[in-house]
């Protein structure tokens, strides 16, 4: 990073954090702190909801995902628009009617205190882990690339987030997210324009997609009905729908965002805006990665994108083997480039492309085989080290090819994304701890000022815990995957509790409580022993709670709900 990059990064972060603290300096009540004053408009809610879901991992990993596996990851988001419509029509009006602070408050009215606190507890576990990982994952990647101390990066992200989240609560989180999203989207558009201009002059957008297609990366939609394929049309619409329903409907970090609306209509519109924009936005981020892939068809990429890891291998007895693989990679790359240029010539002259495409496919397979050997070498040289370099692809491109200033802006994008998602998480963790546990079971009749202080204190504590967890997160393998899997393990049973609450009026609290405990155990066992794609955990957990809830309710002779919703 050069001085101008530091200036852009520090200036952007300082302005956003200072704005958040200044704009929300008048928060004096627990109501304003926890619900943000209930005066947000749909546009702010929509951006806030999007910023909460889009973590730094989204912007580091997604382009790398397109580079490695193509555009199919977008199917993961097909459930979002459906979930937004279902939630707007069903759950959101109920939250508004009951005027709850947290999603879990509803469950005490419908079932009992133990069910409310069980789901609140499951949320605290998974979101607490998630908050730590959402700080650590970008910190480890940018620290590795720039040679920064990872603990200092963890601390910097954590301290900035804690500062404005504790200062202004929910309102500060939503207000800053509006500007963070502007930086994120603006930065990604600029990145795309810049990368596209680095492609050969004669190359059109259609040519770029044609090259990506020849490399097998343009299978955007996969209709094959396979359970062991992670991203398909069907997995996106079913497993993805359950995950999104659970995430947006029952995860307090999202519920808290849209409960800031000045009316039910504003909240609904904010969610529908997310439903309209989310899939095209993710497609665009994948497209950035695809453009990087096309760029690297004309410029030789590193054989392995985590350069720090590669340098470690060079200091081991496997260094000679690595050098041989790098030579093989360079030869395979040159051969591939010739076939890609032949393909482009065939396209330009409207000649048949079959032979050139076959050449591209064969050469790409050789490059992939060399990369696979390098990953195996990394694993062999340092057992336990992460041989997956997909998360380093985009940031490597940024640092090596972006001009001064744009590198700083892209770093600001990554930091903004890390801060926006972890701020929502800390805000929700503090709120749930105060509303569902402290006020409910420890101090039920304290003053408003007391609850405000408690909410701030718990937010600081959760922030400190997240930074502490981030400090020790290197013990966890494959961080990026861990974030998604942790969510999917806990969301299914939680969604099941809410669905039983809304639609199965004869199932009571004790039945659904034990159904949740058993189903949660079942999902953990399935996650450990089976090879089922993680999106299906959401369906399994949810279905298990519903089926067991009905069964136990019948066995226990328990029926009726305590309060109509």
């Amino acid at each position, binding site marked *: 990073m050069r001085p101008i990059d530091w200036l852009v990064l520090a200036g952007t972060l300082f302005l956003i954090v200072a704005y958040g603290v200044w704009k929300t300096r008048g928060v004096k*009540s*627990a*109501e304003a702190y*926890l619900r943000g004053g*209930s005066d947000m408009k749909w546009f702010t809610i929509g951006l806030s909801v999007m910023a909460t879901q889009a973590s730094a991992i989204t912007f580091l990993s997604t382009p790398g995902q397109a580079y490695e596996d193509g*555009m199919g990851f*977008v199917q993961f988001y*097909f459930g979002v*628009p*459906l979930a*937004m*419509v279902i939630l*707007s*029509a069903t759950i959101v*009006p109920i939250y*508004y*009617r*009951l*005027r*709850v602070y947290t999603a879990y*408050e509803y469950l*005490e*009215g419908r079932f009992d205190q133990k069910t409310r606190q069980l789901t609140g507890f499951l949320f605290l576990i998974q979101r607490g882990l998630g908050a730590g990982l959402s700080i650590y994952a970008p910190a480890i990647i940018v620290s590795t690339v720039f040679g920064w101390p990872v603990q200092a990066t963890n601390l910097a992200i954590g301290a900035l987030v804690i500062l404005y989240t504790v200062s202004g609560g929910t309102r500060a989180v939503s207000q800053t997210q509006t500007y963070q999203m502007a930086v994120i989207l603006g930065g990604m558009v600029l990145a795309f324009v810049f990368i596209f201009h680095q492609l050969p002059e004669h190359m059109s957008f259609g040519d770029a*997609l*044609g090259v*990506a*297609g020849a490399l097998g990366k*343009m*299978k*955007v*939609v996969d209709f094959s009905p396979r359970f062991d394929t992670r991203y398909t*049309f069907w997995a996106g619409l079913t497993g993805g729908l359950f995950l999104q329903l659970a995430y947006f409907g029952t995860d307090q970090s999202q519920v808290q965002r849209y409960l800031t*609306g*000045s*009316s*039910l*209509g504003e909240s*609904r*519109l904010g969610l*529908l805006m997310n*439903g*309209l924009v989310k*899939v*095209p936005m993710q*497609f665009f981020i994948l497209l950035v990665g695809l453009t990087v892939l096309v760029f690297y068809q004309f410029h030789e990429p590193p054989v392995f994108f985590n350069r720090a890891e590669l340098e470690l291998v060079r200091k081991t007895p496997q260094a000679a083997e690595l050098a041989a693989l790098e030579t093989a990679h360079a030869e395979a790359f040159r051969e591939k480039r010739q076939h890609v240029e032949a393909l482009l010539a065939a396209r330009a002259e409207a000649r048949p492309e079959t032979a050139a495409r076959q050449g591209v496919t064969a050469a790409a397979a050789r490059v992939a085989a060399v990369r696979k050997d390098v990953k195996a070498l990394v694993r062999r040289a340092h057992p336990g080290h992460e041989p997956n370099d997909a998360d380093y692809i985009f940031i490597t491109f940024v640092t090596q090819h972006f001009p001064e200033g744009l590198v700083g802006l892209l770093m600001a994008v990554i930091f903004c994304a890390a801060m926006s998602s972890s701020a929502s998480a800390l805000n929700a963790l503090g709120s749930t701890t105060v509303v569902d546990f402290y*006020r409910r079971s420890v101090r039920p009749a304290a003053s*408003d000022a007391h*609850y405000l202080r408690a909410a701030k204190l718990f937010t600081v504590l959760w922030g400190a815990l997240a930074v502490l967890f981030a400090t020790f997160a290197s013990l966890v393998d494959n961080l990026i995957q861990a974030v998604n899997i942790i969510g999917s393990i806990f969301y299914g049973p939680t969604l099941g509790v809410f669905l039983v609450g809304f639609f199965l009026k004869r199932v009571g609290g004790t039945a659904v409580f034990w159904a949740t405990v058993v189903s949660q155990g079942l999902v953990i066992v399935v996650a450990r022993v089976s090879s089922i794609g993680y999106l299906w955990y959401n369906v399994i957990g949810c279905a298990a709670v519903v089926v067991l809830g009905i069964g136990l309710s019948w066995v226990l002779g328990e029926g009726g709900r305590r*309060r109509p919703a």
Partner: protein
Amino acid sequence: MASENPPSGPPSSIEEGPPFFRSWSGAYLFVLVNLAVVIAIFAWLSWVYR
């Protein structure tokens, strides 16, 4: 801090209509049709650049 689950709703009525559509059903339909169109475009791209 307000008591738990007070019966009163938010400041404005929960029965209000959407600002850009005749009804909420219309707004929901718009989002779903948009998804169908986006998936159709993706399927077309997959076929053209297969």
